[in-house]
């Protein structure tokens, strides 16, 4: 029986086309992921390489003046992506994950972006997460929308009703074949991805797979529910496609626009102006005032004095420090706004599986906005560490040769995941409701 049903299943041109497109796009998506990861790797190698070259040149030019050397010298802080980012690129192409910063005012440096084609960003990446969220539902719809109605329209359903004891189980069998092959297709993609992208079998990867399958089950239960309504093929197609359109295309953009307009972020601009002005105005204000503020921040440096007249590095770096210190309020306001956006997104996403899955995947692969914020915070700490190392050396007019430069190789940021699998409970609940409703309908239509 199963064998015949499977044969029949693969007779259809739609089925072959659907799986064909899926596999083609699957290969393309893994290629995209691979290229993305390769590019990251290349950039990191280049950064390390460049660091050594940079150090050499700067040491050659400014070896007698550590203050001046530090004005130019850039420290690299790298957020190396994990292989999972190859299957869910998320926002990691929008936000730069390599920081090259001098010990000057950090706020003027840390938001610098990488070079990316904006049109490329707008079209988005064709990665596996896109395939799962956008395309798999369509495949599932295409395979299931006429699973019952086609038989009714061709007149074969009557024969099944007469011959079989339970036509409903026949329907379940047909459905199970579809579930099986779609699941296999996804498993194949994950397998390819694992091999090509060298993804280790971590809890993250398993979570990712679990989340993806839950999402597919959600769409199967949607189809199941609609199929049992026993409308014609065309009506089913329209209903299901409209649901896809609303859930995957329409609502997410509406919700996102709502969130963005609810919390407009002009604070970024205020902050960026403030950090510049606070540093630059110090050139014309009272030196002692600047120094007092600096000593208040770093009491340990109050032993270093500044001459009343003329330039000194101590005064210069104190001025630079003011850019960071005095723009703190603006910066906190900006971060608070971003956090509000995040919270509201999470709240809304609970009710809509595609949103929930997208956010979950980004979190698992550590490519979400909150991960980027954490990286920015880590950058601040890294920067502070370097500052504290070099400030006394500069203030004491040490020679550049007295610094052990090997200590300042490019540093790597270690991300940690915050994802918990319970986050997809709402999706499971929705599936439960859909299946329950289907069983209820079944008692009426069968």
């Amino acid at each position: 029986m199963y064998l015949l049903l499977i044969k029949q299943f693969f007779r259809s041109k739609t089925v072959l086309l659907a799986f064909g497109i899926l596999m083609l796009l699957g290969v393309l998506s893994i290629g995209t992921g691979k290229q993305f990861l390769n590019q990251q790797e290349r950039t990191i190698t280049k950064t390390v390489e460049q660091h050594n070259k940079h150090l050499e040149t700067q040491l050659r030019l400014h070896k007698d003046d550590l203050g001046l050397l530090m004005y130019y010298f850039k420290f690299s802080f790298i957020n190396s992506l994990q292989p999972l980012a190859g299957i869910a690129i998320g926002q990691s192409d929008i936000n730069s994950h390599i920081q090259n910063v001098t010990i000057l005012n950090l706020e003027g440096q840390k938001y610098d972006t990488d070079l990316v084609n904006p049109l490329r960003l707008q079209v988005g990446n064709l990665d596996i997460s896109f395939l799962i969220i956008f395309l798999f539902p369509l495949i599932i719809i295409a395979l299931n929308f006429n699973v019952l109605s086609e038989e009714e329209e061709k007149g074969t359903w009557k024969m099944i009703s007469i011959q079989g004891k339970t036509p409903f189980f026949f329907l379940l069998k047909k459905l199970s074949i579809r579930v099986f092959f779609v699941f296999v297709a996804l498993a194949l993609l994950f397998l390819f991805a694992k091999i090509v992208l060298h993804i280790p079998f971590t809890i993250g990867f398993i979570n990712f797979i679990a989340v993806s399958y839950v999402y597919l089950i959600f769409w199967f239960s949607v189809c199941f529910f609609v199929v049992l309504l026993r409308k014609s093929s065309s009506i089913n197609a329209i209903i299901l496609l409209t649901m896809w359109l609303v859930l995957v295309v329409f609502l997410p953009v509406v919700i996102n626009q709502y969130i963005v307009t609810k919390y407009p972020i002009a604070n970024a601009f205020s902050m960026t102006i403030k950090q510049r002005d606070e540093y630059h105005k110090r050139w014309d204000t009272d030196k002692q005032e600047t120094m007092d503020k600096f000593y208040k921040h770093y009491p340990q440096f109050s032993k270093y004095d500044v001459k009343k007249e003329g330039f000194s590095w101590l005064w210069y770096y104190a001025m630079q420090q003011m850019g960071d210190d005095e723009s703190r309020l603006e910066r906190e306001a900006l971060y608070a706004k971003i956090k509000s956006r995040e919270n509201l997104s999470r709240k809304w996403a609970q009710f809509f599986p595609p949103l929930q899955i997208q956010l979950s995947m980004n979190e698992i692969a550590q490519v979400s906005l909150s991960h980027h914020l954490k990286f920015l915070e880590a950058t601040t700490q890294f920067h502070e560490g370097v500052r504290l190392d070099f400030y006394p050396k500069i203030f004491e007019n040490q020679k550049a040769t007295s610094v052990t430069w090997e200590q300042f190789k490019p540093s790597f940021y270690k991300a940690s995941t915050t994802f918990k699998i319970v986050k997809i409970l709402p999706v499971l609940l929705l599936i439960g409701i859909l299946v329950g409703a289907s069983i209820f309908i079944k008692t009426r239509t069968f």
Partner: protein
Amino acid sequence: MSRNIVVLVGTQFFKKTFSTKGFLILLGVFIMVLCYVSINSWNAYKTRHHAIKEHQVKARESWENNPDKHPHRMAHFGTFVFRQQHPLSIFDSGIESYTGNAIFLEAHRQNTANFSEASLQTGLVRFGDFSIALLLQLILPLIIFFIGYAAISEEKEKSILKISYLQGAEMKEILLGKTVGLFLISSLFFIPSFLALWGISYLENQTTYNEIIIRTLCITVSYLLFFMILCGITVVVSAQSKNSSKALLSLLGIWLLFFIIIPKMAQTVGNYWYPNLSKIEFKAAVEAEVSKKGDSHDSNDPYFKQLRDSVLKVHKVKDVKELPFNYGGFIMSKGEAQTAEIYKKQYEKLIESYRNQNSITQNLVVFNPFLAVKKISMSLAGTDFDTYVNFLDQTEQYRYKQSQQMNALQMKFISNKAKGSEGKTHVVDKTYWKSFPDFTYQYIPIFQILSKNLLSVISLLFWMLVIILVITRFSNRFKII
């Protein structure tokens, strides 16, 4: 061909669809969504517009309020440019969310444009932007397909087509009539959208955007063409198909392929074939070339040493301190000119690689009217790639002018005895700050936009022609039974 029959078939289709149950609900929902998105985008635009204006004024004020200063301090004080949006971005947001909004222009350094909307948004940003254009480009085509898929196939199934034929209606008249009817029905959806578009254009009709009316007109015409093509395709597919459900499936397949899969694939393949340099590689390339030419920061650099010697020779002095102008300013202006040129060359290469990435999508407009109308719409709404690149070019030009102006002031007014830029002795009068004009962005002239989109325009016209040809010349190929 009889015009009466065409009109008759058209009005009949219009009336029949209009009285279908559910149609008014669909129309109602569409218009409600349209109102929501128009008002919401309008508000968002206004909020941003004010925020940007306010910050631009604030940044300028703090530039002008600088006291007498050493010009090189001013060169590093620099200018912030916050990117203004074109009002038509309310209609089509294009790549707006992904382009940097704030750029800092200072001496020696070309900074990136930062704080794009997308960089401050959550993971939901990947689902795309919501604008009136999205409704017209993605949703309305689907609605047209839903409404029109059975236009001919249903009549075939119910054997009405035969009767119409026997009564003297030719196939091409029926096809044309249905197309006209479907177009009229879809006009109920797009006319309100155009009203929103023209509303924006009317309200924002100021001198800064003096070509906004022509832009709006061109947008309207291209969308009209696009919808005509879609209606034609719907009717032709319906006539080609054996039954209605086949027709629907084919149309849905077309939608998926042409509106979702091909555009995404085209860009992906483009990115794959033409990878661009990362920032670190780009900077390394610039630095390598700069150090080849000579580093103005290096006092022993042969190029600049030679330059110094020749300057000393011309002015017949022995030391740079005896020169009639500030030598530091002179060297910096030379260095700036040199690095700016090298940067420009590398930058143009980078943009070229972006253009290559986009080229596949660009060339596909010939086969895909969706891509054609999308491109035209974005360009005219000032939210496309070219406009953004043009913006960056203008900021770089401004940056260069600003730096060189400050260098010129330094050469003219700062004594060669000055040891640094600190203090109140070696300064330039503050009136100079005010007299340096603020940055204003000039939009690309409409003629240039249209000529850049010539391929897309031709594509729309070509498709229109093909549809007309298929309906009028090859109508006898369609089966009536």
